[in-house]
């Protein structure tokens, strides 16, 4: 098992290097000059510009710059932001927790609603409730997230005043109050991210449960006197494999989707940082973020591989060939 994982992890390294080369090349192909951005439109001396160019090694070739960036990275140094002089690591570390928290909450919300919904739909297929529920989820899916965000803000923050309009904070006397404050601030953006995920996951889980519910083993189990609930427990375990696959595809999507949501809800996360850095031609931060998301996507795939091994003994046998280890 360890050997398998090590092999799998090693095989992602070339992909990672390829992604960084591509990003570096694209950023350097852009016809932009950070010095023009920095000068803010005024005149400056050729001498000052020359100095900055040499500091940024703009006169060296792209390959040389990539090599020095790569070597620094091997020492764990991502460089410094051109925009504010902080280290790239600290800039990203400031934004990452917010995005992770937001995405984690929305994944939980998506699965927490969709899986029971799918199970319900599968157990009473074609019923009015099944069809109506499905229609509602599809409608929610069709709403673009920027529009959904505005509507949620309008209703729950401006008219009803139940939830904060935007921003994040965790203030309060006790840790319970702080958590409550944080939860209130995250409620609308989390809901906004979940809206479009519900329909997909519900549809997916309904199909998965339905194919399983028709299986004979369920009928046998029920005939043997197993309660409906226990029987469903077996179904859920069997349905886990497709869900794990779905998780791998949904994770990167949530990172991408949070650019809009972070923008509208003024959350200081990775998506907004990306946008600001691209606009400011802050190459080191853009590279650092690209590297980070590449690592996350590849790590997500690795995680899914591991989850497969855990949830499905058949895959474990096929991959590892260690039959003796099963059960």
């Amino acid at each position, binding site marked *: 098992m360890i050997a398998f994982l090590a092999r799998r992890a090693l095989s992602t390294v070339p992909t990672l290097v390829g992604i960084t080369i591509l990003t570096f090349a694209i950023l350097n192909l852009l016809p932009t*000059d950070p010095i*023009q951005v920095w000068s803010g439109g005024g005149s400056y001396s050729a001498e*000052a*510009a020359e100095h900055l160019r040499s500091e940024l090694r703009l006169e060296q070739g792209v390959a040389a710059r990539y090599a020095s960036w790569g070597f620094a990275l091997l020492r764990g140094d991502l460089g410094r932001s051109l925009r504010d002089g902080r280290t790239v690591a600290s800039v990203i570390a400031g934004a990452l927790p917010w995005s992770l928290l937001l995405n984690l909450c929305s994944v939980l919300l998506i699965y927490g609603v969709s899986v029971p919904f799918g199970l319900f739909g599968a157990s009473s297929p074609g019923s009015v409730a099944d069809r109506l529920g499905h229609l509602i989820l599809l409608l929610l899916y069709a709403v673009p997230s920027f529009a959904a965000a505005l509507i949620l*803000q309008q209703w729950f923050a401006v008219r009803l005043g139940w939830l904060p*309009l935007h921003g994040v904070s965790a203030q309060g006397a006790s840790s319970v109050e702080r958590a409550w404050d944080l939860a209130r601030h995250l409620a609308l953006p989390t809901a906004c991210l979940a809206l479009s995920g519900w329909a997909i996951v519900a549809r997916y889980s309904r199909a998965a449960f339905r194919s399983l519910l028709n299986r004979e083993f369920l009928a046998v189990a029920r005939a043997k006197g197993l309660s409906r609930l226990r029987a469903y427990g077996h179904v859920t375990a069997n349905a886990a494999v497709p869900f794990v696959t779905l998780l791998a595809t949904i994770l990167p999507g949530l990172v991408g989707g949070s650019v809009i949501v972070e923008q509208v809800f003024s959350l200081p996360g990775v998506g907004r940082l990306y946008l*600001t850095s691209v*606009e400011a031609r802050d190459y080191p931060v853009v590279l650092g973020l690209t590297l980070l998301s590449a690592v996350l996507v590849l790590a997500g795939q690795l995680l899914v591989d591991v989850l497969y091994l855990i949830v499905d003994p058949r895959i474990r046998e096929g991959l590892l060939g260690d039959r003796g280890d099963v059960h």
Partner: protein
Amino acid sequence: MRIPPRGRAKFPLALFALAVLSSCTASSPPEIPRSTAPPEYGGRFVFPLRTEPATLNFVTASDQPSDLVARLVGDSLVDRDVDLNVVPRLAASWEFADGGRTLTFHLRPGVRFHDGHPLTSADVKYTYERVIDKTSHALARLDGFLPVERVETPDERTVRVVYRFPYAPALSGWEMPILPRHLYEGEDFLTSRYNRAPIGSGPFRFISWEPGRRILLAANLDYWAGRPYLDTLDLEIIPSQETTLQALLAGEVDYAALTPVQWEAHSKDPSFLRRFATVQYLSLFFYYIAWRTDGTNPFFTDPDVRRAMTLALDREGYVRTVLRGFGQVPDSIFHPAILPPDPELRPLGYDPRAAAALLDRAGWRLDPGSGLRRKDGTAFRFTLLIYGGAEEHVQYSGRNYAGFHDPQIDAWLQDGRRTVDPVARTVLYRSIARRLDDLQPYTYLFFPATRAALSRRIADIRPSPRGIIVQYPGVTRLRLSRPEGG
């Protein structure tokens, strides 16, 4: 044709105009007005920022939000009031000598930084030295200091600036907030902790910066001009203009710049107007097309062809429909607030037939087959570059993207820079504007307008062409009609 959608691609012609005309305004400035009514102190004013400041170092900042915070926390020798007149801040007075080559500032007595350390001429000199130091990355501040020969500090309260030649726009550069030398010395200038927690001598002290969220400022109770009326100034970072409007409606912010759609939806709604006042102003910069007149292409060396290009563009129509009235077609290269409009100068109207006639006369004849105009086998076809900080915008001298060179205008510019008499300068700059209108090296597109709504609890505020915050005394004298809390 594409036009940069946002103010990011800021064209500095009008700023340049502001600089060259700065000494048109009186140099014996008025005292800061003091209200005779019993002042109402207290309250929190919440102002939204679209983008987060890059740094709070007063001199390396090149973005607008950084500059805005620097002007509140820091204090400069001079500033501009709501009508862009130069007014004193740290410098109680100043005088030009040596035909305009020497500028002497007399600092106010007893000014202290927020940490209690006295501010002296040494701090002014230090700030100047950081700007011209090429390791400081202070490109955006360099403009006004390139002609400086040296800065002298005869005593603690006198700063003498010697220019290499008489330099009429000299005062503009000194709108720069003064750094505390005693804190920055011994720190790495680019990574100093004071770049994120600044200490200045301005009307507001820095309290906190929550990255991506807000910057909190509080009144400097020991400010030399008297404490600001407000207790705190809260700069909320809200990237979305939609969210900003919702925040205004929910009472979370006191100001919101509106999009054209928002303006149309709300600016005539009585219930909205009961709660909010509306303001509008024309930005100082404008968008333009610079025609490459330097012979690198066969089209735009001919002034008639350039004039045809301007005539062929429906600029009024663009402002009316695409911008929904959020702009104004420039009459001249100078913003109306800087140089009073010239009655003899009118923008060229939209006249495609006159444009076609000019092109025919210049030898660019319509080829019915391709629909293109041709001359000697060359098709009239060119690429329009949109500003984005790109290297392709080859620089000539300064920002002369058109590669435009006219000995007459150069001579007038030289004269204008050395002419201290405001009337003579106005005459000179009007001549420049008219000659540019004749030769059309640029097609001026529009000054973007800002339209905003602000909370009714704010009494007496008028936007300058640089907004409601960037003016002096501005927010220092801002009062809330119903102060919150104690």
